[in-house]
């Protein structure tokens, strides 16, 4: 590449290095929210998501997922959908929905699916890597199985999460999962449908991302 700016780096570093800055000596910490019981964690997770305008459905077990998906399809009259090719739930998505709507799988590179994703996909389905109870947050680690754009471009995103995946707060998640050892190319925290208050402080949903987020929590095996 034509751009060479090693001297810029050198000059900047020289200016910074001429200074000896002392670190503050006092150690502080911030107490992040902690649940007193798993029920409380789930309740906070649900309340925060609902407050952020997401729909939350809690199922007793994974067996109910198929019926739930079909019901949603009926209710919203989705015609076209996209889900990952791998991913924890992709088989359930296929079995439940293939007969009821046109379900595509994310098999090709994005470039080939771009037009379909932007123009003719009603809904996308994904699993989650984790959940954060404190803020009502879904954590997605997109991969070849479930690419980044699955949670971004269609007007509705349905995400499935197991209650055992929900931790109390963001700090806890980072330390428990050893995120400092390295991260996938993209990790995204999602806490509701896309929104904006840029016009006269009036909240509107579906600014650029999905206007609807449906979270299905599997509360059991």
């Amino acid at each position, binding site marked *: *590449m034509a*751009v060479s*700016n090693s001297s*810029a780096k050198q000059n*900047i*570093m020289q*200016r*910074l290095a*001429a*200074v000896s*800055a002392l*670190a*503050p000596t006092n150690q*502080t*910490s*911030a*107490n*992040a929210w902690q649940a007193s019981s798993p029920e409380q964690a789930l309740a906070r997770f649900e309340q925060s998501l609902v407050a*952020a305008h997401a729909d939350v459905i809690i199922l007793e077990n994974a067996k109910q997922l198929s019926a739930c998906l079909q019901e949603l399809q009926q209710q919203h009259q989705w015609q076209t959908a996209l889900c990952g090719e791998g991913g924890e739930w992709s088989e359930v998505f296929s079995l439940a929905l293939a007969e009821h709507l046109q379900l595509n799988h*994310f098999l090709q*590179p*994005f470039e080939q699916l*771009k037009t379909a994703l*932007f123009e003719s996909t009603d809904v996308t389905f994904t699993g989650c890597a984790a959940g954060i109870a*404190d803020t009502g*947050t879904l954590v997605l680690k*997109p991969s*070849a199985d479930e*690419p*980044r*754009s699955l949670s*971004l*471009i269609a007007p509705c995103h349905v995400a499935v999460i197991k209650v055992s995946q929900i931790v109390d*707060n*963001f*700090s806890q998640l*980072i330390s428990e999962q050893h995120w*400092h050892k*390295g991260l*996938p*190319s*993209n*990790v*995204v*925290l999602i*806490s*509701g*449908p*896309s*929104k*904006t*208050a*840029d*016009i*006269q402080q009036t909240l*509107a949903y*579906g*600014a*650029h991302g*999905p206007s609807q987020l449906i979270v299905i929590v599997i509360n059991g095996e």
Partner: protein
Amino acid sequence: MSVQHYYPSQFKQQASDALANQTLRSNFRGAMDYLQQKRKDAFSDPQELAQLREHAENIRQRCLSKLPQLLEQLEKNCQANGIQVHWAEDAKQAQQLIAELIQSQGATKVVKGKSMVTEEIELNQHLEGLGIECVESDMGEYIVQLAKETPSHIIMPAIHKNKQQVADLFKQHIKDFDYTLSVDKLIQTGREALRTKFKQAEVGISGVNFAVAETGTLCLVENEGNGRMTTTVPPVHIAVTGIEKVVEFLSDVPPLFSILTRSATGQHITTYFNMISGPRRAPERDGPSEVHLVLLDNGRSQAYADEALRKTLQCIRCGACMNHCPVYTRVGGHAYGTTYPGPIGKIISPHLQGLAQTSDLVTASSLCGACEEVCPVKIPIPSLLQRLRHDAKLPAAEQTPSLKGQASAASWTEHTAWRMWAWLSTHPSIYNWAMAVGVKLAKYLPMPMGEWTRCRNKPELASQTFHQTMKRRASKSVTRSATGGAR
């Protein structure tokens, strides 16, 4: 497209214009009341807030104390992740560098997600001159761009406009726009217009909220999803950030993120928190195939060199200081004529543009302290303003590096007046004589007295000096006590 220009050197005129604009004032008043209330609700427990602020301040100070090492570490880890790292000393270098990156792709269509640093380097105008279209994708910035303006707030760029004004703009610029004042429909209109742009874009440009040295990760905070679109859909992503945005550990991120969103808009979390640690990796199917990071100095190292001024760089750009500033809430963002308006703008702009341009800004404060009180990283903004006022008028103290534009606002008359006053005050007999004469002549003082009486009445001077009054009183009480004295 020529953007309407405001200049920091014309702050006084721009501020009076803004004060006379009733629509602008009511738009800002409404927005600021809303944001103040939202922040207040988000921090209902004062103890928790105090603890969180102290922690955030410590994190930022620790990271700044190791800035050179952290930048090296960030570069190394980003490169290991496949992110190409570039450095720019000033706005011009950054413009050229980014333009070359775009041109090396043969690209002419660019989308940009909210990034104040690219406003700072006036990237849009530069790219436009090269025949590259750069569309702002944040709803507020898109509106502002259509109006050929610049953002008036760092978090809510179109805060100075109401929905009528937005609808009128859309009518003027968007084909087949069905005139409406429904905010939902206006946003949908923007969404559709921008989707076309996202689809076509060859390069996406974004800012960075936190750059994590430990893992080589770029974090972006947003609600709309335009940041994710910008960094996911186009084949090339260029992130542009100031060198101060680096944090040491991933574990530094959650507390800063939490206090940022709560201070900014009173949200406990934003809709999206996007952590980018590299381009598309095989066998991934989407994401850009190239990611670049541009690290910009542009005067930040000047602030860094001085222990007090370094605190300016703790800023996490939440905007709380402007939302609570009695000056900003009245004159709005454009009057400042700088990319960053309000209190943070007053203390950072002198480093970016020099004191010669910005010396009026540092005086545009009543030093009420509201900004410092709400700042999540406890930047002592009022005392930094006082320091910069000093630097605008006088040479740097010994052992202190001189700032760009140091002493540029020095005035011979002011300086001489103070020198005379100092001399007079240390020579009591001449002082007393001069004062006695002074009060006699006071009634002949000209009216109006320049700036002083432009918005004040001329002060009524006493007919005697303070010393004369006290002397008289003393002699009276002596007489009184001599005659028994009680009332």
